[in-house]
């Protein structure tokens, strides 16, 4: 479903195409309440989705299903930064503070995370 979401997003929103074509990173998403994960292997304009967490990931996001959906609903604001001050953004920030949303590999990959968030965002 996550791969399908990205595909539909990139196809229907031309502004996401540039981000998609520039992104080369392995992003893991582990949904903690169903104990399942995927690895999104972005290869500068193409995407390979692997079931499970593959080795050598740049970033790994660990959260419950509802929080993963909230990440997709983050609005993108000025300079392409995710908006953390509206209701959805505050909810995501709170999960981060509570440790219910974990992002491994964030150090050094902040720009990658923002790019992934922009590609993911449906808001």
């Amino acid at each position: 479903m996550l791969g399908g979401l990205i595909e539909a997003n990139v196809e229907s929103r031309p502004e996401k195409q540039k981000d998609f074509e520039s992104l080369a990173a392995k992003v893991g998403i582990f949904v903690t309440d169903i104990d399942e994960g995927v690895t999104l292997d972005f290869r500068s304009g193409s995407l390979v989705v692997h079931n499970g967490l593959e080795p050598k990931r740049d970033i790994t996001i660990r959260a419950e299903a509802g929080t993963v959906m909230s990440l997709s609903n983050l609005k993108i604001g000025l300079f392409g930064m995710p908006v953390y001050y509206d209701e959805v953004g505050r909810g995501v920030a709170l999960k981060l503070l509570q440790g219910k949303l974990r992002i491994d590999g964030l150090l050094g990959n902040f720009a990658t995370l923002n790019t992934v968030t922009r590609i993911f965002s449906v808001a």
Partner: protein
Amino acid sequence: MAVDAFSDEWAIRFKDEVNKSSVYKAAAKGWKWTVGLVIEAEPDKNVPESLGVVMDLFDGEARDIHVGPASEAQGCQFVITAPYSRWKQVATKELDATKGMLQGKLKLKGDLPTIVRYTKASQELTECTTRVPVQWPDEK
């Protein structure tokens, strides 16, 4: 009083619950697409034929919800398909619909970004189903 699951009476009660929900009204503002739920047959569970639930949802209101053939539901703009027992799990809160879709237990056809944007509305629709007391065909 309990009504038969996926009967005409159930559809009326479900529609009433949706229209009573202020949470749904707010979360579904801007929604303008039809949604079909396909309940796949499970003859061993007393559901001999597939059924469809057709929902005409518009801007936070349920204009019509009725039960019909699966083919009618398949003609909607968004279609969610699962066997009867999965739907029962959703309606009895054993399975969260969002998790079900992520796991592929509920198959979704339609524009994914749109439905993800309305996650809260779809969760509230599920809540509305749980407020209608039902008699399940496999428990008769």
